[in-house]
């Protein structure tokens, strides 16, 4: 059983890496497309570990140092595995003024991890957003594409639980 699983994982991994090669190869020679390629590759693989950066480097013919330099410069690119869901707590000025920090503190206590980290169970990656453009609904946070307006500290725990429940219902956990 274990062996079968192992093969399945490897082949999924191979498929992913193959798709990354294709994405990169399709963009070879297009001037200045590195950032767009990294967006697509991260979309396929979930994050950008060194081996993935190497593939991009080879396929595009750009030195690994340059690929790595770009991947580490921009906050949208991650070199670490990410949680199934991304919590973005907005700390734009409006949300900050309306009490966004107390939501951050409450989230940290609830999740057991700090900003920029992923929970041990792989459920949530916890990030700060500089402005999600919901300034009229401050303080706001988003989990994946769902925006929660006017968040209060005592609502946080319930919001997180609802995602565990949803994943359970969908059979993800």
């Amino acid at each position, binding site marked *: 059983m274990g062996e079968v699983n192992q093969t399945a994982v490897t082949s999924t991994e191979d498929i992913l890496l193959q798709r990354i090669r294709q994405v990169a190869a399709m963009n070879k020679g297009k001037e200045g497309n*590195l*950032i767009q390629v990294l*967006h697509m590759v991260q979309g396929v693989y979930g994050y950008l570990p060194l081996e993935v950066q190497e593939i991009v480097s080879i396929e595009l013919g750009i030195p690994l140092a340059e690929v790595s330099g770009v991947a580490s410069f921009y906050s949208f690119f991650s070199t670490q595995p990410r949680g199934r869901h991304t919590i973005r707590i907005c700390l734009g000025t409006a949300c900050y003024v309306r009490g966004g920090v*107390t939501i951050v503190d409450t989230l940290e206590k609830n999740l057991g991890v700090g900003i920029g980290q992923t929970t041990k169970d792989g459920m949530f990656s916890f990030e700060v957003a500089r402005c999600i*453009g919901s*300034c009229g609904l401050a303080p706001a946070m988003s989990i994946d594409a769902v925006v929660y307006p006017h968040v209060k500290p005592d609502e946080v725990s319930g919001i997180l639980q609802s995602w565990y429940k949803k994943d359970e219902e969908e059979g993800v956990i």
Partner: protein
Amino acid sequence: MSAIYSLKIKSPADLVELRDNFLKRTTGFRHTIYICGGAGCISSHSEDVVQALKKAIALRGLAQEIRMVSTGCIGLCAEGPCMIVDPDGVFYGQLTPEKVRMIVDRHLIGGRVVTEYTYFDRQKQEYIPYTKDLPFFNKQVKIALRNVGRIDYSSIEDYIGHDGYAALSKVLTDWGRDKTIQEVTDSGLRGRGGAGFPTGVKWKSGHDQPGDQKYIICNADEGDPGAFMDRSILEGDPHSVIEALIIGGYCIGANKGYIYVRAEYPLAIERLQEALEQARGVGLLGENILGSGFDFDLEIRIGAGAFVCGEETALINSIEGKRGEPRQKPPFPFQSGLWGCPTIINNVETLANICAVINRGAEWFSSYGVGRSKGTKVFALAGDIVNSGIIEIPMGISMREIIYDIGGGMKDNKKFKSVQSGGPSGGCLTEDHLDVSVDYESLAAAGAIIGSGGLIAMDENTCMVDTARYFMEFIQDESCGHCVPCRIGTKRMLELLQRMTNGEAEEEDIENLETLAKTVSETAMCALGQTAPNPVLTTIKYFRDEYIAHVRDKKCPAHICAALKEYTIDPEKCKGCGMCARGCPVNAISGEKAQPHAIDPAVCVKCGSCKAVCRFDAVVLS
């Protein structure tokens, strides 16, 4: 929509025909409903409202009589989801599926306005149903936002029906390059991204620069926290930006343009992409546009989460696929920009003004505004204010009119303390500045800037030292690290501010902070670093007593700085009801039933929820 793709617009006459057909098709409806599909309303579940409205209209058999338009941001985000019903001009806010069903029955069928779902003025304690009576709407002048909230963002026909691509037609067939540039110059339009450089002068320098390959770029990397004006334009009227880029490209002699949008705006990217495909589909982008012989195409480039990329030379590096670090100027982008070619970069809102200037003339445009600040400015109004949202005002009205008339005053009847204008490059103004004219020169003289247009109103419960620290933390996080003053200087400034908010600073630290701020602003390489000290310098200038309270008395007068405040429970007043313990998000409160409770300061996150729920006033903030 599919019909439009089979149609090609090959000449100005085709364009006029399409416009006339659209207008014919859309007249004769008993009501037109403009329903907001802006990002703010979407997060307030406007999609459910749209579906309920569609269903109710279909169910009552009104589809032939009532026209529904899904628009961009109507502006009053605080009241979202919202809609406007014409021809009456009635504004309905905080909509739910139940409310819209009621509005269909009582207003659209019964003919009576459902007053209790319209705007409620808390100061006057009355409902104001009509937009013409609402200060939020009637004090505004919409030029850049002329179509946002009034047309279907996804329809090129709707745009053409509202004189869309008429300016392009005029420029290509009648005016030519020189007259167009002259008209833009005469209008007095200045860059709306923050710097305020005259747009016509910029285009002229692009035009005069020799070179076979030139580029025009739209800077849609709207990074200032609290600013979402450009987003509302891209999401609500993408064609106005595309049309202006074609005109700009034609004027400077570029056949290729880029729109650089930040990755945080997926909806804007989606709508822009769709608009580009439509324009290409009908032949308004591509070869031989409107039979003029002019070729032009556009490409979207998506950012990847770096604030500094809003700086034009960093943005150019990012489009080239490099790290978004700024370049030394000169050479300026108009001399050597993208891939070393002459490049003109305009902000979204600047471009959104262009077609209005060409259609209605420089004289009309410059009739709005004061002094050297012509036309209007779009602001994102947010913070502790009643009517948060997107507004466009003629330059020269006072900050008081913006905050109290359009903005409806401060939330919860709290006292106004400060307004922050211009984001991390801007400054904090006080009550004494409320009558300052809102234009480039007057705001700069007061120590703030118009900037890109973020306006954050702050009430008495705001700590200005903490606000300065907030902006410095932002800058420090976003400093690209290229030059020393910004990389290290802002780090040291942040540390000084952190010491102040932690109650660990000495009195001389205020002076140290001022000296360092001036050094950074004089020596940093790009605008990000040069303007980064502004929030610090203005808060020290106008709120020095608060800084002194933090460093000398170790007190935060606004009770915001967590290290300087403590929540305790007065055992005399506490009845042991347990309300606070149940509401505490971090379980910091313990105590036996009917016995005085206590807060564990090591666990407490100082959120204040215990104080909010206590019915016996037993929670004390010190």
